[in-house]
């Protein structure tokens, strides 16, 4: 099936070339960082996690989001998603590989990465995160490949693979829960120390993952002659709406706890993110525009979907715009605000704002491009098989 990636029109090759250019730049930036050290990033003593870890956190969500396709199809036998589940599985593969790349980019001694496996440490959430991520990656590779091969041969997938499919469902939940536990078990970090962190992560994941899949489907409809079906897309947008609403609700709950309890530590991060935090006469607010964009995009997207549902209309373009709005809103909320907001006040009550460096952004874009490349190739295979079956 691999051979399918080598056949494509000029637009396909152009797209790959653009991605490869980004990957090339990212690779050069990474080599610089590898030779010099993490000093090339905008991170520092007071703010020692940055863009890499926040992208990792967001992408774990994208990977988990595939669950919203797998679960209805395999558990509830919701046939409409039949053509989509493979896309969810392949998206999960690509996002987890991106996650692992972000982790490797973030550690100070990448050559010692194996220490995580050589000295398993059950008290560390990072160890369990690695376990569930690798597990979920493996499960998706197995399920995706076996099911696609079966489809190509036009036979039913072997029975045993369903065991892996069912196991992958709790795994999808666990990858995001454990990632939330990286944050929400740390003493003295009020913004993260919240029992609602894991549910909040899951809600945003169940919106962001499917939103990306819908966008991919709409693009493939135009360029690759692949139609997921109107009903499937409509159901997906419903799922996205509910998940995004629940996520917004959770964020509001955080506001309530912070502002009603009036405990400074619980308010600082929210203040910094949404209004600007004053300290010794200086106002720190570099994320305020991003967070308000997130709010506007989220409610804008929800409004757009609501309009389309009520009026029972909606063009592909409108759906696409709605999904992009929600996806970007969630990226700003989780891929930027959550990590930076928690870090802005250091344990020594000092305030440090984060500005990623060009090198760091180069690596980040390179990894995203790698992810897009993987998704493109995997989807190319999946659609190639579809077309073959139809023909």
């Amino acid at each position: 099936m691999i051979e399918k990636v080598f056949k494509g029109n000029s637009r396909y090759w152009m797209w790959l070339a653009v991605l490869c250019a980004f990957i090339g730049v990212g690779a050069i930036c990474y080599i610089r960082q590898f030779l010099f050290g993490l000093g090339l990033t905008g991170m520092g003593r007071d703010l020692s996690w940055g863009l890499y870890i926040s992208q990792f956190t967001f992408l774990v969500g994208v990977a988990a989001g595939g669950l919203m396709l797998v679960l209805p199809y395999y558990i509830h036998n919701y046939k409409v998603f039949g053509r989509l589940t493979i896309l969810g599985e392949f998206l999960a593969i690509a996002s987890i590989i991106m996650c692992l790349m972000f982790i490797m980019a973030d550690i100070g001694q990448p050559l010692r990465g194996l220490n995580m496996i050589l000295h398993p440490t059950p008290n560390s959430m990072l160890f369990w995160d690695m376990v569930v991520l690798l597990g979920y990656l493996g499960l998706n590779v197995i399920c995706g490949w076996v099911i696609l091969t079966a489809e190509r041969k036009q036979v039913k997938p072997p029975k045993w693979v369903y065991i892996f499919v069912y196991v992958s469902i709790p795994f999808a939940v666990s990858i995001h829960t454990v990632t939330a536990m990286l944050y929400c078990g740390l003493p003295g970090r009020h913004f993260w120390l919240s029992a609602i962190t894991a549910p909040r992560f899951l809600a945003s994941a169940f919106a962001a993952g499917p939103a990306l899949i819908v966008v991919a489907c709409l693009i493939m409809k135009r360029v690759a002659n692949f139609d997921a079906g109107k009903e499937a897309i409509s159901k997906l947008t419903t799922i996205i709406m509910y998940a995004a609403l629940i996520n917004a609700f959770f964020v509001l709950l955080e506001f309530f706890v912070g502002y009603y309890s009036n405990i400074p530590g619980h308010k600082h991060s929210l203040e910094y993110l949404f209004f600007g935090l004053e300290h010794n006469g200086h106002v720190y607010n570099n994320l305020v525009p991003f967070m308000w964009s997130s709010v506007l995009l989220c409610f804008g997207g929800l409004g757009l979907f609501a309009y389309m549902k009520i009026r029972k209309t909606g063009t592909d373009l409108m759906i696409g715009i709605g999904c992009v709005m929600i996806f970007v809103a969630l990226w700003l909320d989780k891929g930027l605000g959550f990590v930076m907001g928690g870090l802005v006040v250091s344990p020594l009550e000092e305030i440090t704002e984060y500005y990623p460096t060009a090198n760091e952004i180069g690596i980040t874009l390179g990894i995203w491009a790698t992810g897009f490349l993987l998704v493109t190739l995997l989807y190319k295979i999946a659609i190639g098989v579809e077309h073959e079956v139809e023909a």
Partner: protein
Amino acid sequence: MDKQRRKFLKMAGATALAGISAPAVVKLTSSPALASSGHGAPAEHGAAEEGHMAPAHGTEEAPKGVRLGMVIDMRKLYGKPELMEKAIAACNKVHNIPQIDSKKSEIKWIWEMPFENVFPEHSSYHASKTREENDFLVLCNHCDNPPCVRVCPTKATFVNKENGIVAMDFHRCIGCRFCMMGCPYGARSFNWENPRPYIKEYNPDFPTRMRGVVEKCNFCGERLALGKEPACLEAVKESGAIVFGDLNDPESEIRKVLEKENTIQRKPSLGTKPSVFYIV
């Protein structure tokens, strides 16, 4: 040998940590009784005499073992920033701590900070003049229940069972900086780049670090193993501002100070049980 002496020999469990095989000895406290007992000799001399005795102590120890701790008597440091600077300089020197002039990448093991930064959980409302005008000395608290150790995925940071020191294995650390997230006291630093060019005065007795690993105060485990006191304590010895010893030994000087004086710990509500106490 008196009981107290044996206790301190047990502290030499730090030997293993420092990777020094010479049997370690004696004078580990500022207790005058010990200093005058004639064994305050440099380690090379004491080693032969004490070396064969050390292993025997393991069996007769109190079950809870040694828990090293520190009391910082700020009353003796108020208005004397030069004393604190002396302590800091001594630590920097013995541990080859790079002097990096940027807030972003600096490395600190022991440093000064205003009260509200060090004790944010204590009210600073209508604080006394002394409190407002003086900086406080901070370092890793060698917590009894350290979150930094709990979160480390490689056991690169660990509690030394012999004496309660929270130590670092620089060769195992992968530089994930999770421990920095876990520590609620900001006690840890990361080598964002190669630290060696920034070492002012090289001390061949202590390893330098490579880039990409985390480091912090180690309660001078390597000096204890040689029968010396922590460098910061030694530097400000005459002032008596720092008291160091076994928190589990009711006879130790530090316990006597703790029984007599009112002390506070940093962020006690987090349950980390810091082993550094402050008299303010």
